[in-house]
């Protein structure tokens, strides 16, 4: 059972919800929490477990072999990303533009562009009671999050069975990294705040997950500020509203000291239970 926690707008509470929901579920069941916001992973600020595994992650990029190259330029022609550029006397490769499609390498008649690994980041696996926490960190200066997100999901899939509830704390926005983080999940939780900005961006996120034919529901965070537009939109469009997390200064204080919230705010615990019950129902239906 794979559940992505995503949002259009950044800073609406993806990590707050992910870590608190994971901890809440772990009181009853094993749960996997995976931070896929590899450019800025921060679930680890709240979940501190024992490090049980770490590995470096690599992506494959072409490397030019001058002695073999005839400067025919086919590599440049087939590259959709301008990652391979033919100059007068050389081929230049831009690893951060490369999408690892292998076209230049496979099609080169002289085999002058073999694929070689370049390091892009690190994956860490922690254990804290019932929570298995996995996070990946993209190296500073690397531009592409997608290959690392994809390899992190592969690690989770390979190490945990199908039935385990897996929460994917996703990157913000609606671009490639979010698509990668959500494309194989069974359900997407979209968290937003009830402000015009939050409403605008959650609509983009809703359009995105609809296009991907994903089941999804909405959680409103900081409920009580802004207006009723998100509520009304969900009602008018038959979108399940999974929970409303109240706007409360105390919650912000707990968050900023790296603490879990639901253990100290009963209303949040109640809202998390609503979400957990919804997940259990989904899980039951998925089995049929």
């Amino acid at each position, binding site marked *: 059972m794979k559940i992505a926690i995503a949002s259009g707008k950044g800073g609406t509470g993806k990590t707050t919800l992910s870590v608190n929901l994971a901890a809440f579920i772990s009181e009853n069941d094993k749960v996997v929490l995976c931070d896929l916001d590899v450019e800025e992973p921060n679930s680890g600020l709240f979940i501190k477990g024992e490090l049980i595994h770490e590995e470096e992650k690599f992506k494959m990029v072409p490397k030019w072999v001058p002695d073999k190259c005839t400067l025919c330029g086919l590599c440049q022609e087939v590259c959709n990303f301008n990652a391979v550029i033919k*100059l007068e006397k050389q081929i230049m490769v831009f690893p951060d533009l490369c999408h690892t499609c292998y076209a230049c390498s496979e099609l080169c008649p002289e085999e002058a562009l073999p694929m070689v690994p370049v390091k892009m980041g690190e994956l860490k696996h922690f254990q804290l009671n019932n929570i298995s926490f996995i996070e990946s960190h993209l190296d500073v200066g690397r531009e592409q999050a997608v290959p690392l997100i994809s390899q992190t999901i592969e690690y989770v899939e390979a190490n945990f069975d199908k039935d385990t509830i897996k929460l994917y704390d996703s990157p913000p926005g609606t671009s490639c990294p979010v698509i990668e983080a959500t494309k194989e999940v069974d359900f997407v939780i979209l968290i937003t705040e009830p402000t015009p900005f939050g409403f605008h961006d959650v609509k983009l996120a809703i359009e995105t997950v609809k296009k991907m034919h994903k089941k999804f529901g909405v959680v409103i965070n900081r409920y009580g500020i802004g207006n009723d537009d998100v509520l009304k939109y969900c009602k008018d469009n038959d979108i399940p509203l999974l929970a409303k997390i109240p706007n409360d200064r105390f919650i912000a204080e707990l968050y900023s000291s790296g603490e879990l919230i639901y253990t100290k705010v009963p209303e949040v615990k109640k809202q998390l239970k609503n979400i957990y019950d919804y997940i259990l129902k989904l899980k039951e239906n998925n089995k049929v």
Partner: protein
Amino acid sequence: MKIAFTTKGTEWDSMMDPRFGRTEFILMFDEEKDELVNFDNRSIEGEAHGAGPKTAQQLLEMKPDVLITGNGPGGNASSVLEQSGTKIFVGAGQMTAKKAYDAYKKNELKAF
């Protein structure tokens, strides 16, 4: 000397394009021949990635001695441009090409 400009048009009176990779045109003035030629770079708009290296490659094919632009090329484009001896001057993004040329002649532009 051949001097290239990133511009929004094809005339001396055209405004400079402050962007390098996504410049609309490359205007090139050949001082010896007293000739102004241009390259239409507007298809770059359709490139989601790697506009910098691609425009840099085009520029290198035109073999200018000097490039005058606005904000200056980014990292990827710079590494292509380093393969040539082209001198780069920046800070001309808000001028016409003619004004940029005059400023260059008076040594008023900043070397990149």
